[in-house]
């Protein structure tokens, strides 16, 4: 064993470059795999992870306190099938007037009286301040990536108490908008009792229904007034993460396959190029088993070092990368709750060296069988008469000889060339797929972005006090239109209404002014022409099983209007419907616009306009339109993954070029001895890989396009939107032409350094040693 280790150590030292290449490829591949698998894991079940961490309730139920007592509910919670419960908690519905500061919670709040944020079910993440323990205190449900600036401010409940915000807690289950101490809830006039259940079997809606039926079996009839299952919540919350999943899956799978291919290529190449060494070991008296052991040990050293360093690098890069990916308005719900799973590290640390050893086994077995004399005389793997017809045709072609020799080189080692081609092909597929995705996302993000540059909100808050505008609605619109730089002004009002026959609320948005369509991208039908017409988001139509041309009755208070759906536009809000201001007024006469969207003339400065608007009326909050973070996130993360995978593919080419030039040192020496210039050597070596690169482009581009066609519609489906064709048809001839050199670029990037090295070979030294 000592002899084996000594021989392996000597081989590692002697083959410095090969050792470095193996370590580098395994390092990069492991880094990519750790990140890709980590992302796959994080994207596949982010809700489940966060939900499990908070021990979220499988069912949140509201009971009528007039029909069932807390003691009865506590007894019911002990029925078989119930794993754990939280409650009973008194629950109040608080309606805030629109002009009251609601801290982003909306106007209809669910407030629950709860003694502490912990417990066996629904463990809240109290991320700022403290829990409400006394009357007059409230904790708001807010995600931790928001600001905690509102701590200490006051929430005014109409004809009720004033509540000081003492903390912010995040509850993924959305069991309440705010929590107060049990002693405070009576002042808010609770109308329900909240119970939260975890069941031993919560695998399907049917099982959940069975569990809830068992709980309510002994309770008075109609005691249960409402319930919500975590599966419904999961579907709602997970939709944004589901949008990321198809594309992360695509990148993850590509990363794993590229890495495995490269490792197999590097390792088998290292063994094949060391045949003379094998012969010498056998001649010295090493048994075939010992020779295989030397080779496996020789490969394991750099592979294990590369894997270990790659795992560390993957962990270091994953944290900021995950924060980057899981940020933004939608996926941000998982921000901070996503981390690298331990199994990913374990798999990388054990799996990658195992892949290296497996890849080395086949060629090592060849070394096992080879006779010492043959191995020594061959020097490298015996070459047969492969593809000599191609060489002959190339020799007779009009191409410069260095180029035709280079094109012929891959045919001398078809197996190695096939592995390299596969790596380049996947690299090109990745680049193509990512380019298409980035184009789609950019068009998605940019659609309608020139519709307005500044949003002017009505009302401004100064030290907790709201300052209302001095101008009325129509006067405000005229004022904003008259300010320097303004070209178009469109007013927007929001009102919550109810669709007849449905318990779901509908957010009706009324628009009035120069550009009622604003940034909405119409995918079907037309925009509204008259009062009583609406345009609905694709998510709303799918959710409610409606189509363009259908009619629906909307109700608000005692008023109702029947509206016609005349168009569908691209939007993932399941509640949003757009109409004109007159329709909003017909349903809710007091509702006035809450914002004005201003399109500026070309060259006008949004910041200057915002200053002018603020100066014109102190009751306005102008807000220039910011960057689209979701689009930026996807485009930037796709770019980072593409660069990494292209780099790994280039390393594969680098390795093949190193091995090929090593195998052909004698030929290179001879070619130089008969007058091949260093430039011709470089051209020949680079051409040999560029030929594979060109073929990689030819095959990889259609594969990348197919990936784009497969993934993008699934991303859109996940968030219930229909993408217009100009966002999905991104493959114009100019785009394809720009992608064509991708494979060649990857190949040249990988081959250039070995080619230059080959060009600098000292002929006498090579020929003497060979």
């Amino acid at each position, binding site marked *: 064993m000592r002899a084996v280790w000594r021989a392996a150590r000597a081989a590692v030292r002697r083959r410095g470059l090969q050792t470095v290449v193996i370590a580098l490829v395994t390092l990069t591949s492991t880094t990519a795999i750790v990140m890709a698998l980590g992302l796959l894991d994080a994207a596949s079940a982010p809700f489940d992870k966060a939900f499990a961490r908070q021990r979220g309730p499988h069912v949140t139920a509201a009971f009528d306190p007039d029909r069932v007592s807390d003691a009865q509910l506590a007894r019911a919670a002990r029925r078989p099938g119930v794993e754990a419960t939280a409650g009973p908690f008194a629950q109040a519905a608080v309606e805030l007037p629109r002009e009251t500061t609601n801290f982003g919670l909306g106007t209809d709040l669910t407030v629950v009286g709860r003694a502490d944020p912990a417990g066996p079910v629904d463990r809240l993440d109290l991320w700022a301040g403290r829990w409400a323990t006394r009357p007059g205190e409230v904790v708001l449900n807010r995600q931790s990536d928001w600001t905690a600036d509102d701590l200490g401010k006051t929430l005014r409940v109409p004809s009720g108490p004033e509540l000081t915000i003492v903390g912010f807690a995040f509850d993924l289950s959305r069991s309440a908008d705010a929590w107060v101490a049990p002693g405070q809830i009576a002042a808010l006039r609770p109308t329900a009792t909240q119970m939260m259940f975890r069941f031993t079997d919560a695998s399907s809606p049917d099982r959940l229904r069975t569990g809830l039926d068992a709980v309510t079996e002994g309770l008075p009839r109609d005691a249960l007034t409402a319930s919500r299952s975590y599966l419904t919540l999961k579907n709602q919350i997970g939709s944004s993460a589901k949008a990321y999943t198809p594309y992360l899956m695509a990148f993850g799978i590509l990363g794993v396959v590229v890495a495995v291919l490269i490792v197999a290529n590097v390792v088998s190449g290292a063994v094949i190029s060391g045949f003379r060494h094998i012969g010498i070991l056998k001649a010295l008296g090493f048994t075939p088993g010992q020779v295989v052991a030397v080779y496996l040990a020789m490969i394991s050293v750099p592979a294990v070092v590369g894997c270990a360093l790659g795992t560390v690098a993957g962990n270091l890069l994953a944290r900021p990368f995950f924060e980057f990916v899981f940020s933004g308005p939608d996926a941000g719900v998982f921000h901070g709750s996503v981390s690298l799973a331990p199994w990913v590290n374990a798999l990388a640390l054990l799996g990658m060296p195992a892949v290296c050893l497996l890849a080395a086994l086949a060629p090592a077995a060849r070394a096992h069988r080879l006779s010492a004399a043959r191995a020594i005389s061959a020097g490298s793997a015996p070459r047969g008469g492969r593809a*000599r017809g191609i060489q002959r045709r190339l020799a007779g072609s009009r191409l410069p*000889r260095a180029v035709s020799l280079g094109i012929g080189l891959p045919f001398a080692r078809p197996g190695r060339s096939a592995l390299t081609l596969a790596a380049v092909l996947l690299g090109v597929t990745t680049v193509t797929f990512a380019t298409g995705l980035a184009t789609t996302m950019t068009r998605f993000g940019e659609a309608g972005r020139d519709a307005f540059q500044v949003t002017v909100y009505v009302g401004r808050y100064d030290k907790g006090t709201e300052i209302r505008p001095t101008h009325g609605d129509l006067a405000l619109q005229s004022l904003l239109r008259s300010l320097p730089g303004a070209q178009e002004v469109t007013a927007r009002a929001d009102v919550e209404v109810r669709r007849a026959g449905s318990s779901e609320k509908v957010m009706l948005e009324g628009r009035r002014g120069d550009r009622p369509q604003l940034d909405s991208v119409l995918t079907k039908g037309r925009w509204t022409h008259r009062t009583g017409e609406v345009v609905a988001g694709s998510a709303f139509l799918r959710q409610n099983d409606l189509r363009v041309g259908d009619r629906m009755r909307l109700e608000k208070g005692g008023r109702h209007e029947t509206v016609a759906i005349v168009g569908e536009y691209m939007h993932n809000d399941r509640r949003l419907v757009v109409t004109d201001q007159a329709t909003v007024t017909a349903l809710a006469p007091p509702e006035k616009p809450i914002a004005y969207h201003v399109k500026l003339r070309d060259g006008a400065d949004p910041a200057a306009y915002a200053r002018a608007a603020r100066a014109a009326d102190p009751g306005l909050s102008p807000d220039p339109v910011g960057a689209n973070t979701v689009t930026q996130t996807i485009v930037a993360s796709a770019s980072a993954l593409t660069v990494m995978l292209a780099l790994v593919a280039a390393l594969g080419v680098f390795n093949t070029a190193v091995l090929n030039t090593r195998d052909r040192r004698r030929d290179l020496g001879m*070619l130089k*001895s*008969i*007058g*091949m210039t260093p430039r011709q050597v470089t051209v020949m070596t680079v051409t040999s890989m560029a030929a594979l690169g060109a073929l990689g482009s030819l095959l990889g581009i259609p594969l990348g396009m197919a990936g784009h066609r497969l993934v993008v519609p699934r991303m859109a489906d996940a968030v219930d939107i229909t993408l217009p064709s100009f966002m999905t048809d991104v493959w114009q001839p100019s785009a394809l032409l720009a992608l064509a050199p991708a494979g060649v670029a990857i190949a040249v990037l990988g081959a250039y350094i070995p080619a230059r090295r080959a060009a600098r070979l000292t002929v006498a030294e090579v020929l003497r040693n060979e």
Partner: protein
Amino acid sequence: MIAEESRGEAVVRLDGVHKEYGETTALDGVTLEIRSGEAVAVMGPSGCGKSTLLNMIAGLDRPSGGTIVVHGENVGELSEKGLALYRRRRIGMIFQFFNLVDDLSALDNVALAAQLTGSPARQARRRALELFDELGIADRRNAYPAVLSGGERQRVAVARALMNRPALLLADEPTGALDSRSGEQVMDLLLDLNQIGQTLILVTHDAHLARRCASRLVELGDGRVTGEHTLEPSA
């Protein structure tokens, strides 16, 4: 077939040539002159610097000191590209182990030398075929090196060396890897070439080869010239 040189003019001049590999001295102040049309054999024990001397003249390696002038070109001062062009234009090299490209046919191996200079494939193959005819291996032109005998391989190597009509033919142990019969054939070939005016420098252990083919013998020992003799042509 052979470059026209007026016999007697010095084509190679070595003046105090040194070559060191780390702490090992391979050549230690070699001064030598070789005239056009001469056939010079370099002999000496293993490790005396014979092959190093040949490599220096061929521009395959650079001297650590001294000057090597071949046809007026100071080889030591040439750039890498200059050396490649020098080898292409001036030098034909024959190796002990042939150094043919396994993946190319015998004909394409020979044509390669001309194609690297930019000659069209058809023209290069035509010239290669002429050489195959002259060297008596025309029937083996489409064979690959693996199926050729040692003597045939060396003839292909000679043809390749002559392809660009070199001023200087350098042979490093040209019969070292051949059986005696093939060795004799190669010796005859070299002798014929020299007799029609080809300048030849031959590195060998084989005294018989030296006597057969060379008109002058240079003896090397420990990197130095230890003796020079004129050789009588043998029968």
